């Protein structure tokens, strides 16, 4: 899963055991980025 640290704005890869924490600055608030794939949406 790719996230973005809300303090240092760097991309963060989270692993299962590392806990929720930015490895660069230690900030605990991470933001999930929108996936770069094309998303198909039905209109209803």
């Amino acid at each position, binding site marked *: 899963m790719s996230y973005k640290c809300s303090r240092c704005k760097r991309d963060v890869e989270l692993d299962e055991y590392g806990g929720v924490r930015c490895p660069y600055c230690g900030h605990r608030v991470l933001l999930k980025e929108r996936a770069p794939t094309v998303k*198909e949406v039905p209109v209803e």
Partner: protein
Amino acid sequence: MAEDFEVEFIEREDRKARFLVRGMTPAVANGIRRAMVADVPTFSVDTVRFVENSSVMFDEMIGLRLGLVPLTTPLDDFEEGDVVTLALDVEGPATAYSGDIESSDELVQPAELNVPIIELKEGQRLQLEADAVLGSGKAHAKHQGGVAVGYRHLHRVEVVGDANEFEEQEPNILRGVIEEAAAEHAADESAEDGALVPTSEFDNDLTKRYPGKDVEVHDVPGAFVFHVETDGSFTVEELVRRAVESISDRAAELEEKVAI
């Protein structure tokens, strides 16, 4: 149903019309109204592929807005289920309008170019590809070509006597179209018996047309005044023709199926 209907236009524009039909039953009138709403297909966005959406709205909400943009639909060239691809790419700061939509088919274009889709701020971008499908109003209201479709009886207004001159006349509100039957009492000098007059010409108030008179209003049997507007997919004429065709096709099919 062997006799022909008599049709007379009261108001006629490309997207809006009012016409009188004589010799019709309420069942047929309502059948035509329903066919105009639900049976005549129009193009409408059905699936959207979002490449980028950094706007403040969810993909689904933008998809919904795209679905409601009317697209021109030449019905002679397409069949129900046909797909046309559209594309939209707008970068902020700007507002994405329906006019920014590019179509792969020049026959299918946004009917209005100034329908706002979303306002984009600095750094936001909306990039997408959409499939417009030709479908009928039965499946989804976005496919309805006829909007504000309705009918009323034709009213015949007769003057039956003088109003009490010592009493103030109460407004007598009537909406629709009247068939003039008392031209000599009308406030409008150019009135002629048998003329069709929309009530909006006298503020929908019969006391303004026949001042100081007592009137009686009757429905003219078998005469219906249709008011039809389209969303811009096609002209009113096309809509009405297709609706009537769809009814007669289904009637023919039924006749064939139940024949012994």
